[in-house]
C-alpha cells in the first residue's frame, strides 16, 4: 500500500488531492459522481459576510485549452451558508476547508469569527485574489494588507489558515512571505490569471465584466513557475492550483515543491477528475517504487540548471 498522506501544518490529509474553491460547488453537486470521502480536502466556494448575487451573464467563456470566468462570488452569505450548506458538509469524513473573502479587511475576520463555533471545519482558505470583485486584488497585490488580514484572522482562530494568492503580481513570493509573517499555515497558488476575449462580430467583450479570470490547462506552466518560486522562498507548505487535469500534472507540482494540490476547472468537464487523479498518483508511485508520496515533494533535480 502506498502512503499518499501529506501534512499541511497540523492538518493531516489522507492524500494530496483537494478541490479548488468555486469549481466544486458545496460538494453535494458531486456526491453521485465522486466518492467525496476519498478526496484529501474539499474547499468550498467562497463565502462572504453578506449574500452576493454575482455578476450578470455572460459569466463564462470557453477557450481552447482553458476558460474565462467572471462569476463574481455569488453566495448566500456566511449566515445562510451555515444553515444551508454546512449540514451536508458535516456529514463528510474528509477535511472540509471553508474559503472566505471580504470586500474589506474586516470581512475576512467577520466570516471566520462567525464560523468558529461551527463544527466540521478543518480550516480556512483566505481568498486574497479573486480578480472579479471590485478591489478584490488589492488584498493580494499589497503585502502589507495581506499580512495584516492574515494576522487578524490568525488572532481569531486556531484552525489552519491557507492564504490563496493571485499570480497577477510582480512578485508572488513577496506576498507569500507577508502571509507567512502574518501567521498563515500554508499558501495556495494560483488563483486565475487576468484574461479577456472579444466577440469580433458584436465587438463586445465576451464576459459581461470585460476581463475575467483565466483557468484550466493553459495556465499550468504559469502556475508551476509560481509554485516553484514560492516553495523555494517560504518555509510554510505551498498548495498548488492551476490547470491540473491529470495525475501527471499534479506530480509536476509535487516535484516542484507543492505539498498538496487543488483540482479546478477540470471538474466541470471531467467531474470524476479527483478520483482519476488520486488513482493516477497511486499508479505512478507503484510504477516508480515510491512508498510515500511525501518523498516526491520538492524532489526536483536542479544540479544542471543553467541560470
Amino acid at each position, binding site marked *: 500500500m502506498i502512503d499518499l498522506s501529506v501534512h499541511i501544518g497540523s492538518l493531516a490529509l489522507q492524500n494530496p488531492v483537494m478541490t479548488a474553491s468555486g469549481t466544486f460547488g458545496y460538494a453535494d453537486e458531486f456526491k*453521485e*459522481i465522486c466518492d467525496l470521502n476519498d478526496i484529501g480536502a474539499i474547499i468550498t466556494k467562497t463565502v462572504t459576510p453578506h449574500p452576493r448575487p454575482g455578476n450578470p*451573464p455572460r459569466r*463564462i467563456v*470557453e477557450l481552447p*485549452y482553458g*476558460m474565462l470566468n467572471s462569476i463574481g462570488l455569488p453566495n448566500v*452569505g456566511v449566515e445562510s451558508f451555515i444553515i444551508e450548506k454546512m449540514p451536508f458538509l458535516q456529514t463528510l469524513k474528509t477535511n472540509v476547508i471553508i474559503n472566505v473573502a471580504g470586500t474589506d479587511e474586516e470581512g475576512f475576520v467577520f466570516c471566520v469569527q462567525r464560523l468558529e463555533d461551527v463544527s466540521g471545519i478543518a480550516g480556512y482558505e483566505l481568498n486574497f485574489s479573486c480578480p472579479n470583485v471590485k478591489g478584490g486584488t488589492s488584498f493580494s497585490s499589497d503585502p502589507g494588507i495581506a499580512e495584516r488580514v492574515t494576522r487578524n484572522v490568525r488572532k481569531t482562530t486556531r484552525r489552519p489558515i491557507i492564504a490563496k494568492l493571485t499570480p497577477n503580481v510582480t512578485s508572488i513570493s513577496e506576498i507569500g512571505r507577508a502571509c507567512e509573517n502574518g501567521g498563515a499555515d500554508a499558501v495556495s497558488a494560483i488563483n486565475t490569471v487576468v484574461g479577456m476575449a472579444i466577440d469580433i462580430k458584436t465587438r463586445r467583450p465576451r464576459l459581461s465584466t470585460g476581463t475575467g479570470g483565466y483557468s484550466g490547462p493553459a495556465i499550468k506552466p504559469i502556475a508551476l513557475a509560481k509554485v516553484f518560486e514560492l516553495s523555494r522562498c517560504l518555509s510554510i507548505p505551498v498548495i498548488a492550483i492551476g490547470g491540473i487535469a491529470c495525475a501527471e500534472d499534479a506530480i509536476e507540482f509535487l516535484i516542484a515543491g507543492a505539498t498538496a494540490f487543488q483540482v479546478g476547472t477540470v471538474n*466541470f468537464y471531467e467531474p470524476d477528475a479527483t478520483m482519476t487523479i488520486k488513482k493516477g498518483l497511486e499508479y505512478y508511485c507503484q510504477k516508480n517504487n515510491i512508498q510515500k508520496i511525501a518523498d516526491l515533494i520538492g524532489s526536483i533535480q536542479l544540479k544542471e540548471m543553467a541560470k
Partner: protein
Amino acid sequence: MVRHCTIRSVDQVARNTYLLSFEDADLCRVVRAGQFLEIKVTQCTDILWRRPFSIHDTHPQKNTVDILFHAVGPATRTLAQLTAHAELNILGPLGNYFRYEQNVREAIVVAGGLGIAPFMLMMRELQERGIAMRLFYGTGRSDQFCRLEEFEKYAALHLSTVDGSRGYQGVVTDMLSDYLDQSAHHHDSSLYVCGPTAMLRAVKEIANRFNMAAQVSVETIMACGFGACVGCAVPMTTPIPGQKYFMACKDGPVFDIREITIDD
C-alpha cells in the same frame, strides 16, 4: 452519472441537422422530457467543455436514446461525423423537466429551429396523459424542418418559414399570435416553448397578452451542466435579497416564462 455509451446511428434528418442514437438501457427509462445530457465530444482539448443536448426521444424497447442537433461549430461538427460503434462519454440526465398541469386541455408547443429537439419525448409524455397537442414550428426555410411525419402523429402542425417556402410566411410567433387571436380556448391551453432568444421574447409577450401559462426551455452557455460552475445565470424577473439569478442547469433548463428575464 458519467456514462460510456455506444453510438447506434447518426443520420442526417434535415439541412445540417442530425439524429444521433446511442445505447443506454438505464438512461432511456429514467429521463423526462426537458432534461439534457452533457457530452464530451473529443479528447482534443481545443474543445474543452462538454456540450449540452436535450433528450430528443427514447426507445425503451431498443434501449436507445436520441439527440437531435445542428452542426454549428467544432463540437457539433465532430459529432456529426461519428458513426455506429463509436463511444460517447455522457453525463446525465441533468436539469428539471416539463410539468403538466392536470386541468390543461391542450398543449401548444412552440419551437423555433432546433428548439424542436426536446419535444418528441414530450409529446409521448403528453399523449400518455391524454392531452391534446398543437405544434407551432418555425424555421428559416422548408428544408430545415425535422421529422414532421413523426410529429404529425402526435400534434396538429402549424408550420412557418421565414422565406415562405412552406407554411406561413414569417416568424413562428406571428403565426402563433394570429392563431390565438382567432381561437377561443386560451385559458385551458398551456404553452411549451424552446427556441432562439428573439422568439422567447416574443412568446413572453404573447403569453402575457393572452394570459397563458408558458414553460420555456432556455439554452444558456454552460461549463458544467450540474451546478458546479455557477456560470449559467438566468436573471430572475423578481430578484430576492442577495439573489438575482437562477442557474439554468439546476433550476432549469425549464422555467415558467414569467419568472425569467430574457436577455441575449
